[in-house]
């Protein structure tokens, strides 16, 4: 017990003094801190359950104020071989679509729980990510992860999110919609990862059906590699999916850097999809994001996105501009409010909608 307390104190101290800045499970935080995804998440490609470090980080650096005693620091480890975590997001949103009556509603965006059975500490884990709301209970990830070489090479098999570009919290981002690889569409297969020095690399082979039953012999290969520096990072992604409906190939470039209290992220993706329509389509999307850490617990996020749904068709592009303010008053609570402005072709009202939202985000 004393050793655990000592570890917690040490982890907190590292979080406090070695990485002065805010923290939450989004890529801009990694770019802000100069960290790899694996530093804060048990999943080396990011998202989902947080590590002991990630939990300590969230409590000591993410919130404007931490309440509770030092002994109450949550690590996620409820038993020696079992860690738990979760995310819940409750929204109030307002949507205005031209030529339609505006709508507003309360909704649960997501309620998810994570379980990580570390049957051989730092070597072998069984991981489960289950979504309980909205709708029926759905398994999003269920996989076995084995570190062949401790903290450097792993193999993962089962149902998992695929590694492509940035793993954004916002699955509606154009770059995530375009690639079809996001946290709503896990796939089943195997992934090998390399976490050596400043490099983070993953290669995955999967059915290419976004979790649906396999219906042909073709498979999807996704690869992602990223160089992570202390103040900047740059990575590339590629995906190739061989299906009876048509082949799908994609590539992306992503990067980020920190300039004082501002962190900038960018991603641009290209998809050549022969499975759409009779002649196939070439699509592109880009994301530019600026996060301004105004002070601890306060972040202003500006995002501009661009979507080219068919490179062979002119004047069909869409954009989405977002202004989001994120406030973390205490640990494990985040209040988010923002506006998203969609701009598309004038004959499509939905492509020109405006959304405003307030979100209460709880996590652990």
């Amino acid at each position: 017990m004393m050793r655990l307390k000592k570890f917690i104190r040490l982890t907190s101290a590292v979080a406090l003094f070695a990485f002065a800045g805010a923290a939450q499970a989004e890529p801009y935080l990694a770019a802000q801190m100069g960290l790899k995804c694996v530093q804060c998440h048990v999943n080396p490609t990011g998202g989902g359950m947080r590590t002991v470090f990630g939990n300590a980080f969230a409590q000591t650096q993410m919130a404007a104020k931490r309440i509770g005693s030092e002994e109450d620091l949550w690590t996620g480890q409820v038993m020696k071989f079992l860690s738990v975590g979760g995310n819940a997001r409750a929204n109030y949103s307002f949507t205005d679509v031209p030529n339609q009556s505006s709508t507003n509603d309360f909704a649960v965006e997501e309620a998810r729980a994570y379980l990580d059975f570390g049957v051989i500490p730092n070597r072998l884990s069984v991981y489960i990510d289950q979504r309980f709301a909205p709708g029926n209970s759905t398994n999003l990830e269920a996989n076995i992860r084995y570190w062949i070489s401790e903290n450097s090479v792993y193999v993962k098999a089962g149902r998992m999110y695929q590694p492509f570009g940035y793993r954004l919290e916002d699955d509606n981002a154009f770059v995530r919609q375009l690639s079809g690889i996001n946290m709503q569409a896990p796939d089943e297969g195997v992934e090998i990862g390399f976490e050596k020095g400043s490099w983070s690399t993953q290669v995955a082979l999967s059915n290419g059906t976004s979790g649906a039953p396999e219906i042909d012999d073709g498979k999807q290969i996704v690869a992602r590699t990223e160089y992570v520096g202390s103040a900047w990072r740059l990575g590339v992604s590629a995906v190739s999916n061989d299906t009876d409906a048509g082949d799908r190939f994609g590539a992306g470039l992503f990067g980020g850097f920190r300039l004082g209290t501002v962190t900038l992220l960018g991603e641009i993706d290209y998809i050549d999809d022969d499975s759409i329509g009779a002649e196939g389509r070439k699509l592109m999307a880009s994301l530019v994001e600026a996060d301004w850490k105004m002070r601890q617990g306060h972040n202003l996020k500006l995002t501009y996105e661009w979507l080219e749904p068919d490179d062979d068709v002119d004047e069909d592009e869409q954009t989405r501009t977002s202004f989001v303010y994120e406030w973390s008053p205490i640990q494990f609570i985040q209040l988010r409010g923002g506006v998203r402005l969609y701009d598309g072709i004038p004959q499509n009202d939905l492509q020109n909608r405006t959304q405003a939202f307030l979100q209460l985000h709880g996590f652990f």
Partner: protein
Amino acid sequence: MTTPLDKLLAWKGFLVFSSMLALAGCAGDGAGLDANGRPLPPAPPPNNDFQEIQDTIFTARCVGCHSGANAPQGLRLDPGNSYALLVNVASAEVPGLLRVSPGNPNASYLVQKIEGTAAVGVRMPADGPPYLSLDRIDLVRRWISAGAPIASAPSDTLVVASTIPAAAETAAAGLGKLTVVFNTNVDSSLVNANTFALRDAADQPVALAAVRVPTARQNVVELITVLPLSAGSYQLSVHGDGPAPLASEAGHVLDGDADGKPGGDTFIPFDVNAGAAR
């Protein structure tokens, strides 16, 4: 703690962000696309029937009488005026019938007149026989059945084709409606008192009760004066310059000065007599 260096770097960050935005794309204007952002189907093949009707019937047989300010029943059949005064326009002799009812040749008064089945008046052409040959009548019927299209293909320019009264023409006293006919359909949202103006000889604006695009005649604009015009000189102007110039449905700005380029104004001077027009 935020240091001055941090603040400086933050501003640089926003400058870099702005530069990145400049490199990002903009939303499309949707030209030529349907509501799903897919290309519209190709336009139907050109229909030149009306031009043939104009050349072989109206100009060849009709404009001897049906032209000028005193055209019978107010129906001018000279090029530039004929379409605007036929299609979806009520007959002066039988107001319950349209001169040309697109898609319905049997209910078009023009067909009844050239076939000699009209209940009122004489068969046209009035100097017949000979009247129009069967193939010419069939041409008119075919054109109306096809929806009475105006021209072969959408134009990539917008120009004033003709006006009533015409430039330098002397109109009869009591004129209360001016008609401007364009070579293609106009954007009705741009038809207003800013793009159409009427001034008198003292260069004073003449009050207009309405500036409008008649129903189903998108290539025509009518100006209705508050009071009938008194005798004198006037100038009608159509503006292709200014912050919101007149443009076609396809978005082509008016080539008002006929220099082959968008922009410029068209001026139509005319007179109104105290007596009958000449």
